């Protein structure tokens, strides 16, 4: 009965675990160091931290190495690690106006306070496979770095300021208004309690900040392409470091370090109610760990979309968006289909067989329509 009840399970899973390790190492290439992953796989580390919901670049790098570069798996490892840690503090609200800006662009205006700062981005490069990377050596790296640092003027850092945001300009002019619907402003912590619907905006944004980038992108895209009514403009996209503070037991606010975040403020024209005939703008907001434009922008699109549910577009349906972009849960559940289901299947089988027997004996439905036995596909 070997293949039916999976016997000898303990041995089998032990061997499977060993084989994974063997496949990672069998070609005997030099081991990848955690510092190499953290620095040279920077964007993967950012993604893992964002979806894992833990800002810890070194741990994220370890997780990536452990998962052989599988981002889902690495984010999952990081999330499981969080459970072992106690939540001792809530940080003070971060203020992105204080951001030390590395990248700041606006699609809405040609010039913005502080100018358009492209920062590190691949947006305007040709995606040609760079075969020279196969020959990269410590020397070529050093050559590049010394040429680069020679051009950096450290005195210029002092002039870097914090700048007004694009939304401040619009707000001053009265073009940006609060969305007309009554918004639940309760502050939830989705890591401490299950999300319930209708969910307050705090819970929605938290869910999206930990959601899977690809999932957010698919639904954000659907909203742009035709299954929704949003077509937002990037009001401002910022990437940089922001200071983080917590209140100590004596009530004093203390600086504890900085984190890298990407922030997107998406401007859309809001639907006006019948009473208010003047159109105005509203903001969709996205924020995530590290540098991840795609995630922040799509989060912004969906934040806006979910605030104007239209009953037709998936992207405006909070339950649909939030449950199904949760990558770690989605991955776990879709993969659980690999587990044995023979008891469950047997239970369905017994029903289906009885129905087929009834049909053969001509005692099917009284309505006279042929009995359909495929109520649902068994797992």
């Amino acid at each position: 009965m070997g293949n039916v009840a999976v016997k000898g399970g303990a041995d089998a899973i032990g061997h499977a675990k060993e084989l994974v390790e063997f496949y990672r190492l069998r070609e005997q290439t030099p081991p990848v160091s955690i510092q190499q992953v953290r620095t040279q796989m920077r964007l993967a580390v950012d993604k893992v931290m964002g979806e894992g919901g833990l800002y810890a670049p070194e741990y994220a790098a370890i997780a990536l190495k452990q998962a052989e570069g599988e981002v889902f798996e690495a984010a999952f490892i990081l999330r499981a690690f969080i459970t072992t840690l106690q939540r001792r503090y809530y940080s003070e609200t971060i203020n992105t106006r204080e951001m030390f800006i590395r990248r700041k662009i606006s699609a809405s205006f040609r010039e913005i306070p502080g100018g358009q700062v492209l920062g590190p981005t691949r947006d305007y490069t040709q995606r040609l496979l760079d075969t020279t990377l196969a020959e990269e050596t410590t020397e070529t790296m050093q050559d590049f770095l010394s040429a680069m640092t020679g051009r950096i003027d450290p005195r210029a850092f002092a002039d870097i300021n914090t700048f007004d945001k694009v939304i401040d300009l619009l707000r001053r002019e009265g073009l940006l208004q609060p969305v007309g619907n009554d918004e639940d402003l309760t502050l939830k912590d989705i890591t401490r309690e299950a999300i319930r619907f209708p969910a307050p905006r705090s819970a929605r944004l938290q869910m999206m900040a930990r959601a899977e980038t690809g999932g957010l992108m698919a639904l954000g895209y659907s909203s742009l392409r035709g299954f929704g009514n949003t077509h937002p403009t990037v009001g401002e996209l910022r990437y940089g470091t922001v200071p983080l503070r917590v209140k100590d037991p004596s009530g004093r606010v203390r600086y504890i370090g900085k984190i890298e975040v990407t922030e997107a403020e998406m401007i859309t024209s809001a639907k006006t109610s019948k009473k208010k005939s003047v159109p105005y703008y509203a903001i969709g907001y996205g924020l995530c760990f590290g540098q991840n434009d795609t995630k922040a922008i799509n989060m912004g699109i969906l934040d806006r979309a979910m605030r104007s549910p239209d009953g037709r577009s998936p992207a405006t349906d909070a339950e649909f968006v939030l449950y199904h972009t949760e990558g770690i849960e989605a991955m776990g559940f879709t993969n659980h289909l690999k587990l044995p289901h023979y008891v469950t299947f047997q239970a369905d089988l017994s029903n289906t067989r009885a129905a087929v027997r009834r049909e053969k004996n001509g005692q099917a439905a009284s309505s006279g329509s042929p009995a359909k036995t495929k109520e649902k596909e068994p797992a």
Partner: protein
Amino acid sequence: MIENKKFRSRYNFAFIDEATKKEIRRKLLKAVAIPGYQCPYSSPEMPIARGWGTGGLHVTLAIIGRDDVFKIIDQGSDASVNACNLRDFVHAMTGCRTTFDTREATLIQTRHRITEEFLTDKQIYIFQVPQPEPLRAVERYEYRTRQMHGEADYAKMWVSLYESFVRHGDIMLGAGYPVKVNGRYIMASSPIPRWDIPNFHQAETLYLFGAGREKRLYAIPPHTTVEPLEFEDVRFHIEDFNGENCYQTGHRKAFLDELYLDDGSKKYVVNDSNFLDKLKLGKSTHPFTNPYINQIKA
């Protein structure tokens, strides 16, 4: 690199931090106080994938003590790969003794079966639940199903059972047959076969249910009335094995697995691995009895 030197072992007893365990225990108390009610809880991430038994693990780890004896089965089998993995995890995080023997265990975690052997008031039985919402098939939105439960508005559910009968001549629900608990809440029985459903009713043991991915806990306390949904003229019934018996033991009053052997022939064997072992070794057993099983001729 941050190093944790504060603790001698790498993880807290039973993995989850104490504050979260306390939260889970509080929610379990609420679940026991309102039988069949789905209680939302934090559902912290486990090092086990979502959908692979995290809810059951939360319950187990929140209530396990150092003296507990732990048993875990998957589809009735102690040796199933996922059960082995979860057993290793619970053992590594608690040091608790584990067993295959149903009678010896104090905590039993299960995926989709109730043991054939009778459960006592000294035991707690923990289900892994993939979909805690019995109304999901008739209502896709969570906020509406919560409302329906609140108002005990189960019309859609009854209509779907009726429609199933009209179309197919029977209520076509297989595993996870919905039950009404304490005359109030309709509850998802987790995908256990109908065979196991009558064993919920007026049981000696405490049944706890954990749905990790969906972040819900619920419970059936001992001595609670649990009725499968049925009509006066269309009754609930358990699986019918057409009078087949176990080819290894000749036993008939147990849930049977259908096997296809290498020569293509079909055989039946007792599903519950520990019960099967005991039958084969001629050990004494204390199986559940209920009116449905009693109808089967030995």
